[in-house]
């Protein structure tokens, strides 16, 4: 089976012939490729093919250091090789690569014994995506004070493009921080589910651990639900839900950029 570099902007016959089989070690060298003075090019093509595969594995390793730390380098590179061959880049920008590595890990049979690993990968991908998201100023808390108090339940918020929520059945916040060297290694309770939010209001990506109520509230807010609906949903889920505390987190996290009312920015 031929694997195409479908990201290549150049769709010429020569490019397709060269790219076909680039990630498939069993594919023969395309006939169109020859060495200088008409010499054989099989070794050259194999060297090039190996370099492409290794550099893409290196890119996956750069994006997912915590996953690599958890499974070890040898395991990681074997898994990444499978991934690279099944999912070649769709963009020439390498920092966008590996978007579905977490989903790949979920289905990767040897990783079934580490059921949290896919979520760790999703955190690492979101971390880098947040890093490259547009630099937009977070919502100024004073703007919330200008809303007509009678209309507060009807306002909604525009999410900051660097805001992401990840919800897991496992303590992935702690596992991620420990394997990125941000937290002391310690025993984690695998029966403790964690949700978290990533934001990047300024230069650095931030990770905020969310309680059950905070997760329901922030998830609803970032999905564009009104403040009234988000508060009600969170109250239904968590009877100890504290609206004042959650609004402070919403404002301090820099997760939103704008208040909307009746379909218009205010």
């Amino acid at each position: 089976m031929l694997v195409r570099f479908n990201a290549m902007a150049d769709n010429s016959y020569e490019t397709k012939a060269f790219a076909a089989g680039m990630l498939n070690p069993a594919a023969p060298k395309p006939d169109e490729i020859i060495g200088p003075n008409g010499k054989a090019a099989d070794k050259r093509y194999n060297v090039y093919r190996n370099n492409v595969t290794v550099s893409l594995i290196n890119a996956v390793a750069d994006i997912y250091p915590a996953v690599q730390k958890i499974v070890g380098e040898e395991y990681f590179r074997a898994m990444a090789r499978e991934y690279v061959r099944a999912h070649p880049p769709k963009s020439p920008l390498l920092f966008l690569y590996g978007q579905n590595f977490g989903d790949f890990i979920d289905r990767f049979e040897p990783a079934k014994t580490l059921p949290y690993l896919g979520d760790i990968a999703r955190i690492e991908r979101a971390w880098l995506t947040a890093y490259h998201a547009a630099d937009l100023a977070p919502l100024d808390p004073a703007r919330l004070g200008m809303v007509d108090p009678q209309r507060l339940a009807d306002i909604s918020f525009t999410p900051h493009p660097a805001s992401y929520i990840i919800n897991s059945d496992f303590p992935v916040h702690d596992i991620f921080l420990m394997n990125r060297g941000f937290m002391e290694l310690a025993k984690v309770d695998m029966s403790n589910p964690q949700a978290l939010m990533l934001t990047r209001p300024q230069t650095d990506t931030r990770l905020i651990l969310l309680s059950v109520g905070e997760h329901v509230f922030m998830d609803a807010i970032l999905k564009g639900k009104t403040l009234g609906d988000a508060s009600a949903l969170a109250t239904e889920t968590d009877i100890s839900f504290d609206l004042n505390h959650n609004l402070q987190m919403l404002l301090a996290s820099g997760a939103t950029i704008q208040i909307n009312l009746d379909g218009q920015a205010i």
Partner: protein
Amino acid sequence: MSNAVKSTVSAAVMASAVAAAIAGVNLGTINDAHAAKEKCFGVSLAGQNDCAAGPGTTCQGTSTIDYQGNAWKYVEAGSCETMSVGDNKAGSLTALTRDVPA
């Protein structure tokens, strides 16, 4: 459904929570990441310069000599220009021409 949902948090409760939140929120927490750090040139050891831009970018960990003048590292705000790295060399908030690889 939506009417029933909205009735669970009254307008008065919401207004007081919003007022309390705005009064209580620590504005510094929004800006701290920015305020607490500054880019400091010429103080980073070889290969230890900052940047978390990921693969395919060429900044993080690419400086090749110690205290390279055009490589920067995040440091605590206000501390950069007081940082001495020996031989009368100090950090700078702008790129330096000293210690640049040939």
